[in-house]
């Protein structure tokens, strides 16, 4: 085998750092030492696109303006469940400035008879039905208002508990008789318990299925906590809404997209319009957030393309805030029953979880994984049910299922600790086997000053202080279909190319850092051209996979390009290229300190105009836990919350969050802190504010705006202190992972535990509002 052995740093500096030998592919670069010994990696490097962003120079999808471009608006249903009998577009068609109307119609395969009707059945209010392209957005909106849709309305159900009743209106007419459940991936088995709108249960994940014997586990328990927790539907609210600009030229389709996955959008558009992938180009330079909901072309992508096809002109189609709320994804709600048993010494004996959640007309409301894997427990079982309702479809939302699950689990663990008369942080030391979370607890507790914590509800006065903690885990995933091209040009320029997109997290900057570190150049010398599907395929930005997937091939391609350049210098110096290195912008020789050549001068030795090397993500050193990219280890986090609760008004203020996190080798401390800040703010918002409110009588979302759909403003954002724990696993040439998901998981649980500590009454449902506080304190009925 073409491999070599190298010793890598392994473990946590200041705790258990040691070395481990790995067998690695012979073509991969030498091991990097710990961050302290690197020049660019692990440092607070300013975002390379910061100036463009703060000056407004950065062009987002909605900023795209093309010659002859038309503006489009979607037609949406205004009833939640119906058969469409007819759609009259005559008035809209005749409106001056309208260029095309496209209605979504059922597609019949050749020779097939079916009774599905001309138009898709309506399953939720806000479902896309068609679109209009016009000279201006205003005209397109006016045209939409002139379209008359005739409905044959059907009974509908919005509320999750109403939908679970056996006599509830059925969302999907086809009977749901069986769920083949294999957890997340692969093996299937028969659940067979779904009926009506209820589907499931899901009982397993790729971390396994049920363990041990629950009955025996609870028999062994000296203490049992059994509670029901509720979480709300939470919409994504990215600053930039979903949307595209489609320019369908004769030779190819150009799609400017606000997307987390240029490659997926390209593949979708190619499939839908039966085009070769090489004839579809998707481009995303700047992107204003997605949080999981932007992995597809949606309905708006094909709509814009159909309108572009009909008109022969580019079409701009960005959704508005209301559409974003009602139709482009949400975090499903949950009703979770959790029963946990422990011995007097704290040892967990059994965890039983049962949950229901609704992702509207979609599936995907499970919450069980974090209860399955955060704490070792010999006896475990989960039953997770999806409940179908006539509401907008759910979508992946920053740590799907885990945020809801952590809210329940981490409160139950707190309650268990109290029954055992153990400090909740010490109790986690006892039952949590993760070494990195142990360090996070130690360092976080010191930074937070956990010793200030008093007995629950013991504070004096109207405003009571409370301290709480919550933990999380997130698996390390890698997308193997991740490639990067690195070019060294003969003018000294260095360029990175990949279809991977930067969704605002700083991917451009970390790629530049990796290449700069490897080439011994300043970060500013690196040009990053990404977010374009004409470049090598990069990963989608979801599941915190990007850093772990794309930075190793970036380094590996750079290493190959560097070797090619050094061979040219070696030839000139009549030496061996293995003796040469690049540092501080100069090529040097280990043998002869007098030999120096500026990098730019070295690039002039090329016979061609560029050196170009492409690398793809190789397997992890030491292999994967699962062959499709589940790596060993986890991304642990511990968050501490300090709150003030006004017991007269019920107002809760989060004063401070200390967020202790790990992500392998940290690449850019500033950007990591920024992502953690964002995750924490979303967690605060989830715990206290955001809540989709539906009208059960009409099926409409009543707060589909930024006024009544409350998100925190600056005065409601707490002081956030981050603590990054370096943890080396020796798994790739960068050994780095992402932080997107972990930053968001534990916050709501930590806040709920802090609120309990403040007032001495536990709140089992979020959002925690003044009303719920006053009810808990028996101050209102």
């Amino acid at each position, binding site marked *: 085998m073409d491999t070599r052995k190298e010793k890598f740093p392994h473990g946590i500096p200041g705790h258990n750092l040691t070395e481990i030998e790995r067998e690695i592919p012979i073509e991969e670069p030498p091991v990097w030492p710990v961050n302290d010994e690197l020049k660019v990696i692990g440092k607070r490097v300013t975002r390379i696109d910061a100036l463009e962003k703060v000056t407004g120079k950065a062009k987002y999808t909605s900023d795209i303006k093309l010659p002859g471009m038309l503006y489009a608006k979607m037609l949406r249903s205004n009833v939640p469940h119906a058969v469409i009998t007819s759609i009259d577009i005559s008035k809209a068609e005749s409106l001056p400035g309208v260029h095309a109307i496209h209605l979504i119609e059922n597609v019949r395969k050749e020779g097939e008879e079916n009774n*599905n009707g001309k138009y898709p059945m309506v399953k939720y209010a806000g479902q896309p039905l068609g679109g209009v392209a016009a000279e201006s957005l205003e005209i397109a909106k006016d045209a939409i208002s002139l379209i008359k849709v005739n409905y044959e309305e059907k009974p509908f159900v919005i509320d999750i508990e109403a939908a679970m009743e056996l006599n509830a209106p059925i969302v999907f007419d086809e009977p749901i008789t069986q769920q083949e459940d294999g957890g997340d991936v692969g093996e299937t088995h028969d659940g067979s318990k779904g009926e009506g709108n209820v589907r499931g249960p899901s009982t397993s994940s790729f971390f396994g299925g049920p363990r041990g014997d629950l009955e025996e586990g609870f028999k062994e328990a000296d203490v049992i906590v059994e509670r029901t927790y509720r979480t709300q539907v939470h919409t994504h609210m990215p600053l930039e809404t979903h949307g595209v600009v489609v320019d369908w030229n004769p030779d190819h389709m150009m799609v400017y997209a606000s997307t987390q996955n240029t490659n997926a959008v390209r*593949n979708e558009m190619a499939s839908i319009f039966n085009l070769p992938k090489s004839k579809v180009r998707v481009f995303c330079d700047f992107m204003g957030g997605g949080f999981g909901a932007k992995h*597809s072309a949606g309905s708006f992508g094909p709509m814009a393309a159909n309108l572009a096809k009909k008109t022969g002109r580019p079409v701009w189609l960005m959704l508005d805030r209301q559409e974003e709320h009602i139709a482009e994804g949400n975090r499903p709600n949950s009703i979770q029953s959790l029963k946990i048993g422990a011995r007097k010494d704290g040892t967990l004996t059994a965890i039983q979880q049962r949950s229901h959640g609704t992702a509207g007309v979609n599936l995907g409301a499970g919450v069980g994984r974090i209860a399955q894997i955060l704490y070792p427990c010999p006896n475990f079982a989960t039953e997770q049910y999806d409940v179908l309702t006539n509401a907008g479809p759910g979508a992946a939302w920053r740590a799907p299922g885990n945020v809801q699950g952590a809210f329940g689990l981490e409160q139950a663990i707190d309650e268990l600790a109290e029954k055992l008369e153990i400090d909740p942080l010490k109790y986690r030391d006892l039952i949590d086997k993760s070494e990195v979370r142990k360090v996070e607890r130690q360092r976080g507790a010191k930074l937070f000053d956990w010793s200030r914590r008093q007995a629950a509800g013991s504070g004096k006065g109207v405003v009571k202080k409370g301290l709480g903690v919550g933990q999380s885990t997130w698996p390390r995933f890698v997308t193997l279909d991740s490639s990067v091209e690195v070019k060294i040009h003969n003018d000294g320029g260095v360029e990175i190319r990949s279809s991977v997109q930067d969704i605002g997290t700083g991917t451009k900057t970390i790629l530049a850092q990796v290449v700069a570190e490897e080439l011994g150049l300043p970060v500013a010398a690196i040009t990053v051209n990404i977010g374009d599907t004409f470049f090598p395929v990069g990963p989608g930005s979801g599941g915190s996979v990007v850093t772990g997937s794309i930075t190793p091939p970036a380094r590996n391609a750079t290493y190959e390009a560097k070797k090619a350049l050094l061979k040219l210098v070696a030839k000139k110096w009549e030496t061996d290229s293995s003796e040469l290195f690049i540092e501080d912008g100069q090529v040097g020789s280990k043998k002869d300190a007098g030999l120096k050549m500026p990098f730019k001068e070295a690039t002039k030795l090329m016979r061609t105009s560029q050196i170009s090397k492409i690398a793809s993500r190789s397997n992890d050193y030491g292999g994967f836990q699962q062959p499709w990219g589940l790596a060993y280890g986890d991304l642990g986090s511990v968050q501490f919350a300090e709150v003030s609760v006004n017991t007269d008004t019920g107002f809760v203020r989060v004063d401070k969050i200390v967020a202790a996190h790990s992500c392998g080798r940290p690449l850019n401390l500033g950007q990591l802190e920024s992502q953690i800040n964002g995750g924490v703010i979303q967690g605060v918002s989830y715990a206290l504010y955001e809540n989709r409110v539906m009208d059960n009588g009409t099926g409409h979302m009543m707060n589909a705006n930024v006024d009544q759909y409350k998100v925190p403003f600056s005065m409601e954002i707490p002081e956030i202190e981050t603590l990054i724990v370096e943890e080396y696993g020796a798994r790739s040439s960068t050994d780095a992972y992402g932080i997107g998901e972990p930053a968001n998981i534990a916050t709501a649980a930590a806040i709920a535990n802090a609120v309990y500590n403040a007032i001495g009454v536990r709140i089992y449902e979020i959002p925690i509002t003044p009303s719920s506080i006053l009810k808990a304190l028996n101050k209102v009925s």
Partner: protein
Amino acid sequence: MDNSKPGNLSICKFLRARNPYGMMEGGEDPWLLLDDANTISWCINSAGAMGPDNGLVSPMECKKGRSCFVSQQADTI
């Protein structure tokens, strides 16, 4: 658990599915085989969570035999 994938899965080419960790495209041998549990699914033909037959979309539902099923080999909608 055994995560080996059965061959010739005959999942509709227009299915897309995403769970917390990865994304699946339909076909006979998706690189990451997801199932219904904890998975958000959509049909790119009907551009939504309902299939062209108005039924639920999921890796287990969008298989050969369903009226709107389109095989990976089919080159047109």
